[in-house]
């Protein structure tokens, strides 16, 4: 490299330094430390003591008091999270793409509908949880849904009181906040060239064939992006169930999510080693799922110009 190149490199690094320093100090270092802590017995108040894979063993494969393997709450919270992701992710993809397509129609009041759909995603999680608590209230005099169920001669339902209902209630209320995803889909839909639809129409393709052979392939990079973000987001679900259930994951821990157990381990039980191990396990799980998504993407994601 010439002297000028070195100077350029120096300048470039200097301008990058705020980000580099920030990343190293506030992200890189904590990531590295969390890995170290995951191999330690660490209460936060005492010096970490190296215990090897003990935390992972206790969580995953160590024999437990019930004769099973691993920490029962770890598995329970992981199972809840997986169930939520399995229901919410496809539902959110379908609902948000569907809404985006509806909002893409050239109809009167289009801007109004777009605003209405996007608005809930601006509502803070706490406020949204409070609103839904009232909507789902099992008291037939107070709960919005139950008040109508009673009028229809049906029995009220304890949406958040019964473990059979709670997960679906949470999924439904989470769908209320898909506005951000809808906006991204909408942007993707607006990028689909009109000529393709015209060509398909001339070839005699109906609405479903146009959707399946034009729209979906053309927005597949956006679907792919939302899928990746959705996997990460749904596996890290924390704030809404935490607020909704006061941190207990009621009813009967059916809403006790992985991130909630991680939080409890870190700040309630002061088992920072366990919490760190859990965060690394979650990272691995997310990596596996996103890896699968990337691996399969070449078959179903179509980039324009390729």
């Amino acid at each position, binding site marked *: 490299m010439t002297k000028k190149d070195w100077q350029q490199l120096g*300048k470039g690094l*200097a*301008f990058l*330094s*705020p980000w580099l*320093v920030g990343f190293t100090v506030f992200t890189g270092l904590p990531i590295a430390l969390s890995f170290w802590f995951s191999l330690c*017995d660490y*209460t*936060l*108040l*005492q*010096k970490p*003591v190296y215990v090897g894979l003990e935390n992972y063993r*206790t969580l995953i494969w160590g024999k*437990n*008091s*019930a004769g099973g393997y691993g920490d*029962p709450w770890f598995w329970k919270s992981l199972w809840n999270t997986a169930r939520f992701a399995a229901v919410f992710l496809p539902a959110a993809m379908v609902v948000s793409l569907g809404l985006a397509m509806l909002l893409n129609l050239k109809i009167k009041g289009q801007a109004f509908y777009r605003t209405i759909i996007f608005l809930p995603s601006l509502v803070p999680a706490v406020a949204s949880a409070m609103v839904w*608590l*009232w909507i789902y*209230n*099992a*008291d*037939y*005099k*107070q*709960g919005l849904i139950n008040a109508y169920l009673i009028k229809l001669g049906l*029995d*009220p339902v*304890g949406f*958040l*009181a*019964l*473990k059979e209902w709670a997960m679906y209630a949470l999924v439904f209320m989470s769908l209320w906040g898909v506005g951000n995803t809808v906006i991204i889909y909408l942007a993707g839909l607006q990028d689909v060239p009109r000529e393709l639809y015209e060509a398909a129409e001339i070839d005699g393709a109906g609405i479903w064939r146009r959707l399946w052979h034009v729209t979906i392939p053309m927005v597949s990079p956006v679907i792919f992006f939302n899928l990746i973000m959705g996997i990460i987001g749904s596996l890290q679900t924390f704030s809404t169930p935490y607020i909704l259930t*006061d941190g*207990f994951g*009621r*009813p*009967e*821990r059916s809403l006790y999510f992985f991130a909630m157990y991680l939080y*409890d381990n870190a*700040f*309630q*039980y*002061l088992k920072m080693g366990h919490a760190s191990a859990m965060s690394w396990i979650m990272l691995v799980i997310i990596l596996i799922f996103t890896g699968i998504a990337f691996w399969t993407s070449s078959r179903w994601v179509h980039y324009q110009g390729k």
Partner: protein
Amino acid sequence: MKHVQIVFFTVFVAAVAYLLLFPPAGATPAKRTAQGTVITYWEKWTGLEGSQMQEIVKDFNNTVGKEKGIYVQYLSMSKIDQKTLIATAAGIPPDVAGVWDTQLVQFAALDALEPLDDYAKAYGISRDMYKPVYWDAMVYEGKLWGLVSTPWAVALHYNKRTFQENAEALKRAGLDPNRAPATLQELDRYAEVLDIQHAHWYPEEVLEKNAEALKAAGLDATKQPTTAEELEKYVKVLGVPENFFEGRTLEKYAERLKAAGLDPSRQPRDLPEMRRYVLICGLPDRVSGRMERAGYLPAEPGWFMSHTAYWFGASVYDAKTDKLTLTDEGVVRAYEWMESYTKRLGRKAANDFKSGMQDVFASAQNAFLVGSVVMEKQGPWMVNYTEDLKPSMDRWNVPKDELEREKNFTDVKVGMSVGEVETLLGPGQGAGDKRTWKAGIKTLHATIADGKVRETSWKWLPAEERKKYFEWGTAEFPSAIPGVQGATYAGYDVLVIPRGSKHKKEAFEFIAYIQRQEVQEKLCSLHCKNSVLRKVSKEFVSNHQNPYIDVYERISAGSNARCLPGIPIWPEVNAELGQVAEKAVKLSQEPRQALQEAQERLEARYAEFKRRQAERKRLAGIVK
């Protein structure tokens, strides 16, 4: 453009360098002002309670602080547990922290607190000054780790008005509507009478057809039975309602029914059989209707469910043997008792009803305030909420004209003539420069000079006088053990000196100040709690906002008051107990079985904690 880049870059580098060289100061580095040493005090209370503590801090700074050269810098914050934890771990803790009771033993076990024994000794602070339950709660492994700032206890709150409105029904059940239940069995019976539940046991035409027979038995053919007791009377006349249990219920309890000699493949045929089936399966969901009101519901507010065993003479932890005792018979009975309410009311009805209440304690929808529950377990702070959200509950028997006059207290302004005040409030009492007006549950005191009001203040009427106006009453929550009086769960907020505090002596000076009788009484009056000290003044009891504070004083001082078990893994124990309680009130698992499983999990966790703790101590050189 190049110049702009250079300026931009220089500013960035300078800012980063400044931050690296002069990081933001931690909470504790020694500071000395003209007044002396500044100590930092972090407290969990925000809002009204936060500003009330600020007042106490101000008093300290203006008196003892001034004299001894100490200035307390007060910081009220949320999530104090995490913030204290992180600051302590980082080596920059506050000098004093007001933490939750659940943290004391946990932090002490992890060596995060300074022991206070030597300071307490030097200041003449000892156990005999305190109500034993609160002092003992501060001691872990023989050392004193904190001192209580504000204590509380749990008692039964009941709605006297609802008792009166249902006086006839209560009397018919052999219960006295003029007092609170005295035994736990009695509480259950009061609750049953006071429940309002829409039930649809029999089709209307069946009731009509048998109107004569029902009338002859003293029953109303236009109504469904609303309590289990009433249902039995109807069953005597009409027989067991058709399809009493769902098939699935009978299947679910098949084993137990068989063990009891009952046939799970058919419905009960008569009353004695029905009773035996109900004992095992509980009242069926399908036919127990929606609830309008519960006499009592263990899950409302449900904050103290983990401590229910105390009322059954048991505990989930035995400090002497350092063993968890979740499967003790008393503990099992406590959870079975909670379960019995759901069995009686029906799973769906009880859970929908509770779920409808949500967590709206500090709101006008509070179940006790709106009358959805007639009796509940609560602490002395309740009066803060009745007075704020439904003041009429504190003035049930106050004549209307007095209510108006009490409202007019706020219209009395400095500078008004005595005549003007009398127009508003009527003739006052006293003469000369001190005049008082009594109205409702308050007394207005005015200082008069030249015929004009110079100063005003108001006080509550003496507690004994106020009690008779209240719509609600407080009594000790009855124990399940015959003859046991004053059983309660006593909680507290606690002041500690985190490890690494730079001004321990000064910090203790402040903590010791809070333990003074007059300071303790002022703070606990403001926060609407009882005192931590054995000795309390008559004025404290009489002028306290809660006229029933004498009940809390008595039960918290008694030998049947219990506090949090001194086990370092309490947060985990509490989480498990929460699960057991939820399973019990939702009838999803037998309490005995749930407790057994929780006991096994917790035993493993506690053993693991102790093993790791020993290793930590060995490495730290505390234990060779």
